[in-house]
């Protein structure tokens, strides 16, 4: 439904939408192709080439356009490789949390009763922890690895999605068109899939978009506390976190991934806003 709508409306999109779409597209393409063109090997370091400013020629003759980091790796390569990790962490987290949230939200919103009771209370209990603290506890106790970061972040986020979905399921559940399907004799499965689900997807999509951005920032925060993706896997978060000690001396380490992160998150935020605007009349229906 959504892509269809988008395609139909591309022509009338405001400039900031073009900017946001363009940015996200460029980054995704760069993330896919970049590492092929500028390969990054986390295990290959070159101590003599440490902390060189952007544009310096390295000992092996190549030019580090964005400079080198504290072990002499090319920042450009690290940023391109990091994008993959960051986007993967964000996407997988959102997909996992979104799916769990969708399922839980549907169960709670549609069936209500004790299913709703259990799921909502569980959500309440979890929301009693500020989410970053929960992520810190989980990541801290599980130890740093990409999977653990995803687990920690997904665990803190499913509730958000579940709430969104539950809200829309609840709103739709008692709508007359659902009642009329019931009167017709439709089964729960049919009602869930054909009637409830389609109304829950747009708000879920909006929430997911926003969460992708926030998850990327959260991953950076975990890295800062040493609980993020391990150094063997470059990620924007960990590169920014490592570069923080050099903000005054070798600013370029944190600058490139930082700018990239901000750009992507802002673009995704703009897209989220537009999606929300676009889907509002839909949820009205």
């Amino acid at each position, binding site marked *: 439904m959504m892509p269809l709508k988008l395609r139909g409306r591309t022509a009338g999109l405001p400039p900031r939408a073009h900017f946001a779409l363009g940015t996200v597209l460029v980054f995704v393409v760069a993330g896919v192709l970049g590492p092929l063109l500028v390969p990054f090997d986390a295990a290959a370091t070159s101590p003599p080439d440490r902390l060189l400013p952007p544009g310096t020629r390295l000992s092996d003759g190549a030019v580090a356009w964005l400079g080198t980091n504290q072990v002499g790796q090319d920042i450009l390569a690290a940023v391109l490789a990091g994008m993959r990790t960051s986007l993967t962490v964000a996407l997988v987290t959102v997909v996992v949390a979104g799916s769990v949230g969708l399922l839980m939200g549907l169960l709670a919103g549609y069936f209500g009763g004790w299913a709703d009771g259990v799921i909502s209370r569980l959500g309440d209990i979890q*929301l009693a922890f500020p989410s970053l603290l929960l992520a810190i*506890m989980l990541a801290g106790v599980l130890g740093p690895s990409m999977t653990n970061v995803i687990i920690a972040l997904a665990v803190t986020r499913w509730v958000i999605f579940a709430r969104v979905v539950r809200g829309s399921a609840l709103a739709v559940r008692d709508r007359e068109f659902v009642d009329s399907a019931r009167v017709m004799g439709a089964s729960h499965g049919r009602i869930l899939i054909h009637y409830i689900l389609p109304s829950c997807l747009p708000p879920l999509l909006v929430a997911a978009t926003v969460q992708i951005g926030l998850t990327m920032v959260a991953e950076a925060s975990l890295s800062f506390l040493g609980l993020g993706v391990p150094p063997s896997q470059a990620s924007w978060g960990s590169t920014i976190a490592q570069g923080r000690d050099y903000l005054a001396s070798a600013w370029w380490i*944190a600058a490139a991934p930082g700018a990239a992160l901000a750009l992507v998150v802002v673009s995704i935020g703009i897209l989220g806003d537009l999606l929300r605007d676009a889907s509002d009349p839909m949820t009205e229906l």
Partner: protein
Amino acid sequence: MTAFVGRRLAQALLQIWGAITIVFVALRVLPGDPAELILGSQATSEQLAGLRAQLGLDDPLPVQYLHHLQGLLRLDFGQSWRQGMSALDACLERLGPTLVLSAWAMVFTVVLGFLAGSYAARHANSVADRLISVSSLVGQALPPFWIGIMLSLIFARGLQILPSTADGTMAGLLLPAFTLALPFVGWLGRLVRTGVLEEMNQDYVRTARAKGMSDGVVFYIHVLRNTLVPVVTMLGLLMGNFIANGVIVEVVFAWPGIGRLLVDSITFRDYAVVEAVLTVITVCYITLNLLVDVLYGYLDPRIQLENA
């Protein structure tokens, strides 16, 4: 109203119990052994076993859980092995600074957020509105530690007009509180903006106009009050976020808060403190949300009806 508060209290207690259980399970099921951390890497296995027994770590989990709950009823979380004091004391000592920081961050957020949000709403779709909207997105897009370090580099190292660490003065509070508030100023601003715009379309606004009320009366007495309702519910969540994001700000600005204590205690498997901290935060957070709900009921009288 009392029934409503009573029910919310019961719910809050349930939440606290659930939170305690989750923390308990998470800490014991996941890897890492405090006995080894205490004794260091050179301890013998008898020493380790002895200490584990002393810490009560070799009981079966349900027994440990029971002891734990019993302790909690006496407000006893056990001793912090790392700090040699009661875990609760260790935690309460750090709670104050965190609350001070969060409270100031809240003040910044609310003041700036409301200013920006209502300005943007009253000038919807103007350049200023767009600018506020984009900067609010940027504020949320930058990792908080990066913001903190940059502010510190600029104001403490570069301009040397503000201290970079907590020194007990108002000046020392400025940078950390602002760093904490920044991502949420934009967030709240957007919330206020949408709220105001939504309320402006309500029928009662039309009524107020038809009554001959001036624009100021309509905005400040009729609209803003109703905008507060959804915003106030968010403040509870916001406080939680301040406490959580406080971890990062506390590290950057050497603020002696509870978040840093938590991170340290997790790294050192100081279970007693981790549990105390999480319980205290949860209790604070839930209490706050309880207050917010009550306040909410006061601001929006319809709520009472639904729950009465």
